[in-house]
Structure formats: structure tokens, C-alpha cells
């Protein structure tokens, strides 16, 4: 070939092999990433579109709105959340909003409580040495963290009986207490990591300036540890919002949370897919928003303790 002969600089065979390898590397990495992103996102997409489908669309397996089916408000209407039913009375919507409020109150309250108790304990454990009976700091830390191993089922039935006696069955307070307990070890885990990364010189300076130990903690340390607290809070929020097991056992009519409602609808309505899809989507929506907006904190929280 004349053009090739005119070329002075060639890519040697080794260079070309390197190129090819680079390209296959790129393609396989992006291929893997895109494939997994598809696997992660498709169920969410599928649920969202199904909530706008009508029966024949579901049967035919149509996937793309406006292309192979025309979206209808069927699912959302049955929940009372579509635009045309917004003003009307709707028992389903009232029910849904009640469950939603319960979930919100329970998860927010228990996360706040867990972050408060957990931060205090983690701070104390990272700064002072304690001795309660035979337990020293490492034993106390282990005691808190070992609660993570405790499976909920062990507490569930005794709690059921105790709550019955204490008239706490089917109350939000009962759920809040148990949820706080279940996320407390995680909060302590994250906050211990956070506090031990803050140098003690800060408090020493504050103490010299005449602050009390609690004053130093509240005014100097807490603001610095705030990102860790937010991470712990968000993680607790996610876990408690999604909790099903205790809620299913310990609540019946008043304090039911959203997951219990979703679970109970699955059985009773058969395959009225569009309304189930709308319900499931409405239940996961808050968390999707949190996940997208606060992703940084969630990752920070989960990565805590992974790297020492």
C-alpha cells in the first residue's frame, strides 16, 4: 500500500496490542457497570411504569410508556393519589397517609433517639476509661456492638408478651423503643470511629478555657462530628423505615407502618398489579429521594470502620 509506505512512524505490534488491550479493558469495565446499573434500576423502573399500566398492558408485557402503551392513572387512582381524585374523599388514601405518618414518626423518632444515645456513649467510650463492675471500656464497647448479632426473632416473642402486659402493643412508642435498640449498635460503631478521629487537644483547650466537659462536648466536639452523626442518622432512618418483622408482629391497627400495609395488600388484592405497583412505589419513593440526595453520607456511614 503506497500510503502505508509513506508513513514514517508506525505503531509497533506491541503498541497495537496495548491499544487493543486498553480498549477491551474499557469496554469490559463499562459493560459491567452498565449491566449492573441496569439490574439495579430496572425493577424500580418496572414498578413505576406498571403503576401507570392497564390490565392488557400488563398482560402483554409492554414496557415503554407512550411507545407501546399509553399511561393511565389507574394504579394511582385506586390509591386516591391521582390528580383527578386528589380533591375527593378516599379511604385508601387516608389509610395510606396514616401508615405513612406512622412510618415517618417511628423512623424519625427512633433515629433521633439512637443518634443521641449512641453519640453520647461513643464519645464517652472514646475519651474516658470506665469500670462498671468487671467491665472495662473494651468490654462495654463489645457489649454494645454485640447487640448487632442478636437476631430480632429472639426478642420478638418475649417483647410481644411484655408489651401486652405493659399496654404497649400496637403503639408507636413500643416500636420506637425496639427500633432504637436495633440501630443503636450501628450508630455507636459509626460514631466511635468519628470521635476517635478528633484530636483530644481540642477539648483540652476548651477545658483550659473554663468549659465543663459537657460544655466542651456540646459546643466544640458535636459540630465537628456532625457529618458522622448525619451519616448515622440517615443509615438508621433507612433501616427503621424499612423494618418489617417487628412491625408485623407488634402492631395491628393503630401503629401499622408502611411495610406492613404493603405486605398485607399483596395477599388480599390478588394481582391488581397497577395499584400494588403504585403502593410499592409510593413506599420506596422517600428512600429513593434520600438515596439520591444524601448518597455521600450513606456511603460515609457504611465505610466507617471498614478502614482502620
Amino acid at each position, binding site marked *: 500500500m503506497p500510503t502505508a509506505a509513506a508513513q514514517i512512524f508506525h505503531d509497533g505490534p506491541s503498541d497495537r496490542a496495548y491499544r487493543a488491550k486498553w480498549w477491551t479493558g474499557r469496554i469490559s469495565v463499562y459493560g459491567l*457497570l452498565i449491566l449492573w446499573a441496569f439490574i*439495579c434500576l430496572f425493577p424500580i423502573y418496572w414498578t413505576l411504569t406498571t403503576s401507570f399500566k392497564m390490565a392488557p398492558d400488563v398482560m402483554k408485557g409492554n414496557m415503554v410508556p407512550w411507545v407501546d402503551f399509553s399511561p393511565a392513572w389507574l394504579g394511582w387512582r385506586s390509591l386516591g393519589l391521582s390528580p383527578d381524585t386528589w380533591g375527593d374523599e378516599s379511604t385508601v388514601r387516608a389509610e395510606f397517609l396514616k401508615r405513612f405518618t406512622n412510618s415517618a414518626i417511628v423512623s424519625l423518632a427512633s433515629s433521633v433517639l439512637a443518634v443521641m444515645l449512641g453519640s453520647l456513649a461513643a464519645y464517652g467510650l472514646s475519651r474516658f476509661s470506665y469500670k462498671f463492675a468487671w467491665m472495662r471500656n473494651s468490654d462495654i464497647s463489645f457489649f454494645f456492638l454485640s447487640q448487632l448479632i442478636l437476631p430480632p426473632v429472639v426478642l420478638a416473642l418475649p417483647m410481644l408478651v411484655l408489651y401486652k402486659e405493659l399496654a404497649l402493643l400496637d403503639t408507636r412508642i413500643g416500636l420506637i423503643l425496639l427500633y432504637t435498640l436495633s440501630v443503636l449498635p450501628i450508630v455507636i460503631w459509626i460514631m466511635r470511629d468519628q470521635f476517635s478521629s478528633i484530636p483530644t487537644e481540642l477539648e483540652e483547650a476548651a477545658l483550659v478555657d473554663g468549659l465543663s466537659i459537657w460544655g466542651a462536648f456540646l459546643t466544640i466536639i458535636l459540630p465537628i462530628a456532625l457529618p458522622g452523626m448525619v451519616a448515622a442518622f440517615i443509615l438508621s432512618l433507612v433501616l427503621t423505615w424499612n423494618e418489617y418483622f417487628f412491625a408485623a408482629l407488634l402492631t395491628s391497627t393503630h401503629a401499622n407502618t408502611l411495610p406492613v400495609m404493603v405486605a398485607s395488600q399483596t395477599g388480599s388484592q390478588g394481582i391488581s398489579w397497577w395499584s400494588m405497583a403504585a403502593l410499592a412505589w409510593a413506599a420506596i419513593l422517600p428512600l429513593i429521594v434520600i438515596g439520591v440526595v444524601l448518597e455521600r453520607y450513606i456511603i460515609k456511614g457504611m465505610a466507617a470502620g471498614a478502614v482502620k
Partner: protein
Amino acid sequence: MSSSGDLLHVVTNDSISARRKTFGRAIIWGSAALLIGIAASQLAQVLGWQAFGFENWRPTLYAYILWAICLCWGQVLQYGEHGKRTLFVLPAALFVISLTVFPLLFGLMIAFSDWNLSSPDGRQFNGWDNVRQMWVDPFYWNAMLNMVWYVLAIIVEYAIAFGLALALNAEIRARKFFRVAFLLPLMLSPVAVSWMIGKSMLEARFGPIARLSRLLGWDEPSFFGSPWIAKATIMVMDAWTFIPFMMIMILAGLQAIPKELNEAAKVDGANGWRAFWEVTFPMMLPVSITAILIRIIFKLKLADIVINVTAGAPGGATDTVTSFIFREYRDRSNVGYGTLLAMVYLVIIIVVMTGLMKLADRFARPRT
């Protein structure tokens, strides 16, 4: 973290008057006496000795809370500065103790009894009957065996999570998008996932996955028909929600590895594959072990998906211990037997996890 000696030295000149100390002691013991008094009178009513007109055990609960507050306050009154330090840990410790240790002791009591909540007879102590029943209960041991399989599935989850973490750690565009997308499954509630995937996408006639598998040549896809396929389906769904969790921990570990190490390996002539096995993987061992241990702990609690998708079908093949006990209670509302099963499960978990942690400790220690 050092466990001996304060990291923060506080020297305060506390002069606590004898009156203050006495007052501190008085409120602690006073509230304790009140608690014991109320509890005793409630017990007397339950045993039928004397009627006080209590409707439930709430008064005892209130007295307990009062005692807890007095205990915390009394620490400060009695010990001054030292009491204020105790105040950091004491509330959390009291909270955890009263919500785990007490119910666990109570659980031990009901584990050895026959107690049907819907029957008027109340609790009947039945000695070792529950243990004997458990010993010959094939479904319980079957559920236990299933847990072993479910835990073993973590190895596959770990491999996938590691691969994804490596891909995310590579030099890529749109990293933020991929991270958020990969994180999302973890945010979804297992109950919603059970419906979204288990009931809708895996629906045998018109679920998209069923369609896909028909396209790929599986004529009559049924994901919950045979025991092994059903088990695998549950594993896949659980993996789908929890892979992001392991992935993020591994990613954090990967980002903590100094770049120089890989560069040095490259200079020494190691290709990608060898560099991975001889540099990256050994460096990641401690993080990997932490991630796997935490994942095992979460896996042992697996229940929501099983309860909502299969309820143990077919024939208990997908049951986890938790879902089995849940159904046992739902069907017969017998708290005694269920509690015993849960207690045995707890003991097994503690033994296994302690062993695993010991093993991991030896394994993760850097070899020099």
C-alpha cells in the same frame, strides 16, 4: 482504641458536701424502693393475693423510668465530675440492658412453657417438652440447614461486590451516577422488593424475567416450583438488596490502598491479574473479612423476603429460622415453643460467630 487510662485528663476540684452525697444516695435508693414496692404490689395482684386495681404493668414501667433517671442524676450528685463522665455511657447502657437483658431472661422463662396467647389458661410450665418437640421437628432443622446455604451464598455475593468495587474504583466517567444507581437497591424496603421482584417481575406468565427466560429457551419458567430453584431465587433477591453494602465497604478499602503499591508492582513487571492477587487482594483481606462478617450477621436475620414471597414454600425449602418461627407463631400463636427455637438459634449464632471471629482474627493478621 486504648482501653486503659483516660485520653482526656480532667482535673477538677470537686468538693462535694456530705449532704449532697446523702441526697444522691437517697434518691437512688428511694426510687428503687418505690420501684420494688410497685412491682411487688402488682405481682401480688397478678398472683391474686390482693387487688389494687391495676389494669396493666404500666405503673411498674413508670417507676422503672423514674429509677433510671434518679440513677443517672444520683451519679452526678455523688461523684461530681466522675459522675458527669458516667452520664455519657449510662443512658445507653441502661437502655440496652432494659431492652435486651430483661426480655432475654423473661424469654428463658417462657421458653420452657406452653403458652398459647389466645387460650385463657395462660402460661403452663412444661419442662423439657419444647426441647423434645424441637429435637424431632424436621422443619426447624431444615430451616437451620437452609441458613447454612444462605450464608454460603455470601461467597458469590462477595465476588460480585468485589468486581463491582474494582470497576467503580477504575478511572471511569459518571462515577457518581453509577454509585447512586448501585446504592439504590439497599435503600428499598425488603417488603417492597418482595413485591416488585418476587411477585411482579418473577410472575410466571407475564413477568419480564419470565418472558426473558422463555426467550432464552426455558419453556415453563417457574421460580418457586422446585426447592433448589426457589432457594436460589430467594438468594438472588437478597443478594440484589445487599450487594451494594459489601461493595461500598470494599470500595472504601480499595480507596485506602496507596497508589504507589500498584505502581511498584507494575514496575516489577506484574500484569493486572498477578498484581490483583499478590497486592490488591492481600491488602484487602482485613476489610473483606469485616465486610463478610457483618454481612453474615445481616444474613442470619433474613426473613422479610421469605415471609412475603414464598412463606416457606415449597415444603419449607426456602424457610429461614426467623420466617419459620414467625409462621409458627402466626399459625398456632404459641409463644413458648417459638421462643425456645429462637433461644436455641441465638446460642448457635453466638457459638458460630465467636468461632468465626476468632478464625478471622488469626487469618486477618498481617503476615510478615
